[in-house]
């Protein structure tokens, strides 16, 4: 990956394409690339939908190589939802394809002069851009289908649905999967709205005639990759639990812990949890059968394969296997215990290009506002369809939970920095509340996802029994996660790394074998710190202060059943998270 593609949509004679060398961005990938470009080139106070904002799409450092799990892609910009910096990442094929074509990043900048829509075509011969008004207001599925008529079925596609075109705060950027379907999304923070503001509907990527990226030290790389894969296969989470049940395996367990936000965060347990659990989903998928039903990867090179394929009872494809967060957002959080309805909502979200977490949280807020009854799946489907149709109500809902709560006068709106909380109640698991509150990304469950202090040796050792341990751990986890996001590795590798020091070493060896560097665990954590620091600095300049690093008050005042707990981490403690 030795070049960057810049597409300036403000060119005097229409969009201008420029391919340039990496310059100061050499050696960066994934989140390290997107956040560095945004921090360097985007004025923090600009409007997120203005010409000054940029949308950066960057494959991970090891994408396009033979390294297992390396196909995640990052999308960064100033977020229309949080007002701060944003990195959202996704699976799918485009990361590998772009990396093989040599692009370390695509940077979309400027704004078109009118409402013409464009598509970008990238292949080994270069880049072109064409008008694409025939794709206007098509969903992601129809967009990809229509493009297939022109470009065949071998390309990977990055696209937006109707939500992105309408520049809604919950809009995603979609990435096609191994089957060429737009099922994988950079979901959070409204990144799709920024792509819509640039007037780009789709980026078509064809890597025909390219080769896999070669490591600098093939022997070391090969040996490390083998050890890394063996480590993932032997670990019970990555080798058995995730392949068998997917991430939805969490439903029963989080529900049992009393931390499963139910009825718009009113209680911590949902009576219908077992019906929508990973166990129930896997059984349904296995009994219905079909290709890739209960175990499937989101991109080539994934050896964990936490995903799957959801077919209806007649065997027709509906969507990819809904993830835990989706099943929770559209399920328990809305009082819905019907997996078929949840899968349909997931399909609609993917088609319109909507973040499933944001939309589930929004529908629950709408239910609290009286727009529908909790548990009414038909009403939830109708509300999501309003978003796709662009009705006034749909545009409000598609702008996310914070806007919906404001419009309908609802106090219980579970957001931080304008972004909805995911599927864990921060009153039950308070450490994750620290991460929700202080993450540079708004409420985000992946922000502190990865490896512990003990593995990376970040910030010294932590006594787990001291209350301040939560703050220190949240800090360390955020640093480590940020570093992994830069590699383009799926964060699920974290479990094997957490428990098996030799697998962590294999990861470091893999990076070193590929890049020819001699990084240590400390270097990885320094990288994480550096990225986080520039994200924090961007946010501070954008006007986000300590007052934004807080959970909504009701988490401190309303006890959560069954444990009757409130969020007890003090503001002073929260302000210590970024003391490094």
């Amino acid at each position, binding site marked *: 990956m030795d070049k960057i593609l810049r597409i300036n949509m403000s060119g005097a004679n229409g969009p201008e394409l420029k391919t340039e060398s990496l310059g100061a961005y050499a050696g960066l990938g994934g989140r390290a690339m997107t956040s560095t470009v945004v921090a360097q080139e985007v004025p923090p106070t600009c409007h997120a939908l203005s010409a000054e904002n940029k949308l950066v799409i960057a494959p991970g450092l090891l994408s396009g190589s033979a390294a297992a799990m390396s196909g995640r892609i990052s999308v960064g910009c100033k977020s229309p939802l949080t007002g701060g910096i944003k990195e959202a990442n996704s699976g799918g094929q485009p990361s590998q394809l772009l990396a093989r074509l040599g692009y370390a990043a695509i940077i979309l900048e400027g704004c078109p002069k009118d409402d013409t829509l464009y598509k970008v075509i990238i292949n080994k011969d270069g880049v072109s851009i064409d008008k694409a008004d025939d794709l206007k207001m098509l969903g992601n599925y129809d967009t990809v289908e229509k493009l297939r008529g022109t470009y065949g079925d071998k390309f990977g596609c990055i696209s937006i649905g109707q939500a992105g075109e309408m520049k809604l705060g919950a809009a995603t950027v979609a990435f096609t999967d191994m089957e060429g379907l737009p099922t994988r999304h950079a979901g959070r923070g409204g990144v799709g709205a920024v792509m819509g503001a640039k007037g780009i509907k789709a980026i078509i990527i064809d890597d025909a005639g390219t080769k896999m990226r070669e490591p600098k030290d093939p022997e070391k790389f090969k040996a490390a990759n083998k050890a890394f894969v063996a480590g993932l296969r032997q670990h*019970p*989470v990555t080798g*058995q*639990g*995730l392949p*068998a*049940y997917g*991430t939805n*395996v*969490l439903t*029963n*367990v*989080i529900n*049992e*812990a*009393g*931390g499963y936000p139910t009825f718009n965060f009113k209680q911590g*347990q949902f009576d219908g949890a*077992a019906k929508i*659990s*990973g*166990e*129930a989903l896997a*059984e349904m998928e296995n009994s219905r059968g079909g290709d890739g039903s209960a175990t499937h990867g989101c991109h080539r090179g994934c050896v964990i394969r*936490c995903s799957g394929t959801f077919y209806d009872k007649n065997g027709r494809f509906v969507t990819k296997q809904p993830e*835990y967060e989706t099943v929770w957002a559209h399920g328990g959080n809305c009082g819905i215990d019907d997996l078929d309805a949840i899968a349909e909502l997931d399909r609609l979200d993917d088609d319109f290009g909507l973040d499933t977490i944001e939309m589930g949280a929004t529908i629950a807020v709408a239910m609290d506002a009286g727009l529908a009854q909790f548990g009414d799946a038909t009403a939830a489907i109708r509300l999501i369809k309003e978003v796709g149709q662009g009705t006034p109500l749909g545009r409000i809902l598609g702008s996310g939970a914070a806007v919906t709560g404001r419009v309908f006068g609802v106090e219980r709106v579970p957001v931080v920095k304008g972004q909805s909380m995911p599927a*864990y109640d921060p*009153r*039950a*698991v*308070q*450490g*994750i509340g620290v*991460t929700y509150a202080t993450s540079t990304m708004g409420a985000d*469950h*992946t922000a*502190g*996802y990865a490896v*512990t*202090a*003990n593995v990376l040796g970040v910030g010294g050792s*932590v006594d*787990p*029994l*001291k*209350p301040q*341990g*939560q703050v220190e*751990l949240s800090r360390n*986890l955020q640093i480590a996660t940020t570093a992994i996001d830069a590699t383009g590795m799926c964060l*699920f590798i974290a*479990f094997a790394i*957490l428990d098996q020091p030799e697998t962590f070493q294999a990861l470091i060896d893999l990076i070193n074998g590929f890049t020819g560097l001699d990084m240590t665990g400390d270097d990885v954590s320094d990288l994480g710190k550096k990225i986080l620091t520039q994200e924090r600095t961007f946010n501070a300049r954008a006007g986000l202060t300590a007052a934004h690093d807080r959970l909504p008050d009701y988490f401190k005042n309303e006890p959560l059943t*069954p*444990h009757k*707990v409130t969020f*007890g981490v003090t503001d002073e403690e929260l302000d210590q998270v970024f003391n490094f």
Partner: protein
Amino acid sequence: MEPAATLDLRLPAETAARFTPLFSAGVGIATRTGIPLVKLLCDQLGIDEKYLDQRVQTIFVNARAVDDVTRLTVDDGDVIALSAAMPGLVGATLRKGGVLASFRAAISYSSGGGQGGGAGFTVVTLKLFNLVARELAAAILRGGIWIKGGRLAAFLEQTTPPPDDTMSVRWNGKPVQSDRWTALPWPEGWVELRVETLTV
């Protein structure tokens, strides 16, 4: 205390496996209060100690995450849930004795367990999730679980019995035609259900 009725099933593996989801919502286990929880799990239910230590990474008692299972005793009406290691930050946080335990201090099991008192009869609820359910359900079903008559009737309604010559049903010790397993005189109270898997 005795159950109101007993149901003994001998089933082909495929049908027997369909009983595993009962453990998601929990099944009754007849035991005695005051005994160590490990004794219930390992001695009474036959879970291998090494399996409990290594495979079962997430344990809840009455919805509270447990760090040291050896310190607990059985209390009247306890709800005990066992799971394999879970993904995600929160999954890792809920693991027993992990470095992330402080993240969920508010919902951890803090005392030394039930105060015990005397050794009386009780029916505790046992929940098994994910791989642990898949791996332990058959043995525990063979030993017997307690389940309310209405719930068992509703469950069997949804389960097609295999052909008569591949299974056997005994109600209160007496043989019954397999196609009548939904038409039994279900009591309101507990039924002791034993399921034996037939190997072909």
